[in-house]
């Protein structure tokens, strides 16, 4: 019989080399990045344009533009486009972020020709039909109304408005009037300025052999393209504050607490990654142990770091028993104070570092995941060895660094606090 009271021996994870990808320049100069190591006959193709909503003149454009790109071209109706993708098992998705727009296709490698012909057509001849725009505006307006019933949406919305500013590209939210104000002309102008004939990057992962590369080259690689300018986004220091959106009829309070932290190129970034993980970044974090596993106030509480350009912000979030709202806030402050006042034990630090290393190792196993990491390096201009050295940088963090990070970033008076529910 084994001695069940003793944990088996284990090896900590040393560094992980992110599998390399290939880069090919297509005839028109567009870069095609390739992660070709799939066991299944599927592919994911992502096309990135510098066409986020920060470039739009109207706030409401983001609520319809990405949907409308698939709604028709001079050659094909929106129904025909989606019908053809579906016919060949392809799933197109267009998502417009703040500075980027990405056109992603998931599908079967054997049908790449069909997907590429349609994509080329959309990138050249989208025409934003009026009737579809009316439908899309209605759908977006009603989705907005639904979101406005969700406490998580309300809390996040107020939080980014306060953090970035109501007129900032990352903080701006839209109202029903903004959706209403968008017309065909706005969409066409944006399309001509940011998509049609403009340069892009392609990230292809999954089963991509020479045959598939040739198809991409013959279609998207033959489009004439020119470079577009890149917007500069600046970030002002926000004013800390506490905000309550009353929802007395709800059973829970939704809370979000946020502030800026160090960005990915800041030497503090990895120290802060370990600090935040200890505090609220995984199931065994101090916040989870206290608020969920000890007090049972919530199904979950977390703290996360979200990089934006060269900055990053931290968000603490939870849905808690309404009657325990104030108590939860006090406990969060208490946990921050403990991290400022006391050095982390070597046991806890080792656990957090090993967890982070294992979690990273487990998140770069498929071609899709490997490409996601490389894409991050390329689109955010990170160092080539950013991920190859990640585990080393994590393992270098010392207890003193964590205390220092907590002292620098864990000050409640510098934070933005949003409560949706009741502050009782």
């Amino acid at each position, binding site marked *: *019989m*084994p001695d*069940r*009271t003793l*944990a*088996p021996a*284990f*090896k*900590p*994870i040393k560094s992980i080399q992110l599998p390399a990808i290939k880069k090919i320049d297509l005839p028109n100069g567009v870069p095609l990045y390739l992660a070709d190591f799939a*066991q*299944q006959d*599927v592919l994911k193709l992502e096309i990135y344009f510098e066409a986020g909503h920060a470039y739009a003149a109207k706030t409401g454009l983001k609520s319809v533009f990405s949907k409308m790109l698939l709604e028709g071209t001079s050659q094909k109706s929106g*129904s025909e486009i*989606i019908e053809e*993708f*579906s*016919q*060949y*098992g*392809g*799933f197109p998705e267009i998502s417009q972020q703040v500075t980027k727009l990405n056109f992603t296709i*998931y*599908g*079967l490698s054997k*049908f790449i020709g069909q997907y590429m012909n349609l994509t080329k057509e959309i990138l050249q001849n989208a025409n934003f039909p009026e009737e579809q725009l009316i*439908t899309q505006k*209605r*759908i977006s307006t*009603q*989705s907005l*109304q*639904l979101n*406005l*019933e*969700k406490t998580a949406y309300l809390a996040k919305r107020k939080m980014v408005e306060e953090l970035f500013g109501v007129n900032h590209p990352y903080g701006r939210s839209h109202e029903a009037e903004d959706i209403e104000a968008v017309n065909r002309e706005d969409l066409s102008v944006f399309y001509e300025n940011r998509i049609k004939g403009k340069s892009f990057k392609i990230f292809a992962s999954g089963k991509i052999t020479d045959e598939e590369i040739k198809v991409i080259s013959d279609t998207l690689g033959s489009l004439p393209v020119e470079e577009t300018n890149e917007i500069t986004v600046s970030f002002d220091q926000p004013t800390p504050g506490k905000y309550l959106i009353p929802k007395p009829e709800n*059973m*829970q309070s939704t809370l979000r607490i946020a502030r800026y932290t160090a960005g990915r190129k800041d030497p503090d970034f990895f120290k802060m990654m370990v600090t935040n993980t200890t505090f609220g970044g*995984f*199931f*065994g974090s101090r916040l989870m142990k206290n608020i969920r596993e*000890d007090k*049972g*106030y*919530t*199904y979950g509480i977390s703290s996360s770091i979200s990089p934006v350009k060269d900055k990053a912000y931290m968000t603490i979030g939870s*849905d*808690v*028993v309404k009657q325990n709202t104030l108590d939860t806030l006090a406990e969060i402050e208490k946990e921050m104070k403990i991290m400022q006042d006391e050095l982390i034990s070597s046991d806890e630090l*080792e*656990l957090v570092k*090993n*967890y982070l*290393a*294992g*979690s990273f*190792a*487990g998140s770069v*196993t*498929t071609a899709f995941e490997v490409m996601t990491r490389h894409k991050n390096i390329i689109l955010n201009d990170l160092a080539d060895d950013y991920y190859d050295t990640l585990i080393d940088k994590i393992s270098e963090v010392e207890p003193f660094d964590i205390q220092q990070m907590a002292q620098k970033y864990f000050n409640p008076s510098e934070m933005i606090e949003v409560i949706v529910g009741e502050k009782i």
Partner: protein
Amino acid sequence: MIHYEHFQLANGLNIYLHQDKTTPMAAVNIVYNVGSRDEDENKTGFAHLFEHLMFGGSKNIQSFDAPLQKVGGENNAFTSPDVTNYYVTLPVENIETAFWLESDRMMSLSFDPKVLEVQRKVVIEEFKQRYLNQPYGDVWLKLRPLTYQKHPYRWATIGKEIKHIEDATLEDVKDFFFRFYRPNNATLVVAGNIELSQLKALAEKWFGDIPAGEPINRNLPKEPRQNEARYTTTEAAVPLNALFKAYHMPGRYDKDYFTADLISDVLGRGKSSRLYTSLVQDQKLFNSISAHVMGSLDPGMLVIQGHLNKGVSLEEGNAAVEKIVEEVKEMKLGEKELEKVKNQAESTLQFSEVELLNRAMSLAFTANYGDPELCNADAEKLRAVTQYDMKNMAAEVLRKENSSTLLYQSKN
């Protein structure tokens, strides 16, 4: 293709190896053959509450999570109406830690009363956060009991009501554990770069001395064929009227499952489906509409759900949906449309096998069901579906008398 090898321990624990030498990570998946369908109707939500308790410490190990995190592992679990599934991913060289942890909690839990008290609160908050504090969050609490009248699928996995969770006792916990959490009621799948001989040694070492339990004979009431269309209306402060329709259909591993699945795709998979093109695009009655199937082991549900545009009444929306359903039931489906839904399904199936953990789960679920080979049968079954099969299945499943409709009225 998920290849595998199998062996069984003397205590009845079935073990499968899916070897994959391309990854440094391993997946360790244990499925216990117990779900919310096995609950007493007066103690619903218990299988799921119990899942939470499995993380509250076992006989020799105070915490399940911390030792695993320490060796670079992650884990989670879920409860469905059919099974309770626990999974760990970790670097393969540290795989023994997963065996140590999983075997100790299969041997015995700590049965600490404080763990029950805290997890009871956590689950109640989960109940509120997911089902009560969300617009339309209570749909399944209402649609299940309308669709099922005999079979225990009539309650949701979270439970019928919060009171059932409040009432659970430590005695219930112990009974449940020693009845259902025995090796002969579990299936262990290990996936990763590991040899069979290595796995056999580890399995024998850690799971070999756990005593078997009494065999369990599941004898669930069969849901009778539904012969009258059922309707119910509910009202809440939601922005749009909504409609939810469920039709009884074959279970996940029934030979005809994919035929019903493809019918749901024809009706409501994506923007080229019949419901979407007709009701959202052409007639503009709905804001969104889709259809999907529940892949449950016992006969399941084909579900249509949609949100109506402002100003459209539930009666009008329902009549429009029923008209499309009737058309699909009556017509012969074209070869091209069948090819389309098959291609979509093939694509989804292939994507689902990319992740090692998904392959491990798929094998675990089919083995738990009684035939591991079913995990490699989906693609072939899908290809074999004919227009004739579709017509016959539609005639049975899409009968109006087989439908249960929840009309969700907006108070706003």
